């Protein structure tokens, strides 16, 4: 017997104002009943942070888009995995990070920048002028951190999650999360090294 597929008879974009103002719990409940409009609102709410975390973890690899989409498909296909609507964001972050790490184990990814570029303190002045280069240096330093440290940094620093929420998302204790954060920051300082000061000086001269 062929597998049943959903038949769509309405536009997929969330036009319904009721769904736009609905809580995550209501949206999840509706999504569990295969309501695509409700699910579209969930996607609208969380796809940017999910994408950012995946991007941060895999160093900006082209797979980021696929990973973010796969994360939401997992939610769509099995909404029962999520027990509490309040934990939705953390759950999505965890699924996305697990997907990244699984892919990373299967095949090494090409990083944005090579690690040796980050450690290079003797940069030429013209190279330092470009602010996008500064951004790349910082991104590369973050990308070279171990996965767990990178994830902790992404959740707390870039997604502004509380330590408690981030720890819950990573399924670790708050103490463990703080330890990861401290090591990540120490690692970044080491990787940026003296060039960190130069980067700051460059930013200052550019009107920071």
């Amino acid at each position, binding site marked *: 017997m062929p597998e049943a597929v959903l038949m769509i008879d309405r536009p997929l974009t969330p036009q319904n104002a009721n769904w736009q103002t609905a809580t995550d719990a209501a949206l999840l409940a509706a999504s569990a009943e295969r309501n695509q409009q409700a699910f579209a609102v969930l996607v609208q709410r969380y796809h940017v942070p999910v994408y950012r975390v995946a991007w941060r973890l895999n160093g900006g690899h082209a797979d980021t888009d696929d990973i*973010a989409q796969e994360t939401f498909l997992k939610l769509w*296909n099995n909404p029962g995995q999520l027990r509490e609507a309040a934990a939705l964001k953390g759950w999505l972050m965890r699924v996305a990070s697990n997907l990244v790490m699984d892919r990373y184990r299967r095949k090494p990814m090409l990083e944005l920048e090579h690690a040796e570029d980050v450690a290079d303190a003797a940069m030429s002045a013209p190279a330092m002028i470009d602010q996008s280069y500064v951004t790349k240096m*910082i*991104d590369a330093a973050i990308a070279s951190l171990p996965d767990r440290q990178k994830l902790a940094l992404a959740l707390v620093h870039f997604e502004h999650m509380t330590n408690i929420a981030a720890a819950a998302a990573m399924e670790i204790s708050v103490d463990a999360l703080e330890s990861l954060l401290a090591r990540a920051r120490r690692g970044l300082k080491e990787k*940026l090294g003296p060039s960190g000061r130069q980067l700051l000086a460059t930013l200052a001269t550019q009107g920071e």
Partner: protein
Amino acid sequence: MANFDKDTGLSDAELDSLLQHASIPLPHNDFEERLLAKLTLAPIPNNVIAFPSRKKTSLWLASLPLAASLVLGVWLGANGTAAEFLPFTTESVSQNDTALLGAQSTDELDFLTEDNVS
């Protein structure tokens, strides 16, 4: 108070300042459209396992041994003894003993002491 790193000289505030200049990636504009289009192809999850319903045991069938046990208990309680159901009864044993001792009944045993028996 700023927390300076011994080797690099970068403080926490400086590191935070640098981190503010990290990339802020954004998904493609058609992210939602492509994802929602994929939903149409996603099969309806079939993760509900239909277990066969358990056969209901008849209440009467289950209560039969209980009722029999209750009747037996009442009957034994009313009769006061289960001697008829035993291969030999305590009554016959005591009668044999009194016969050996020459007593007529168990009441006479009250007069017997260990000294008398020996």
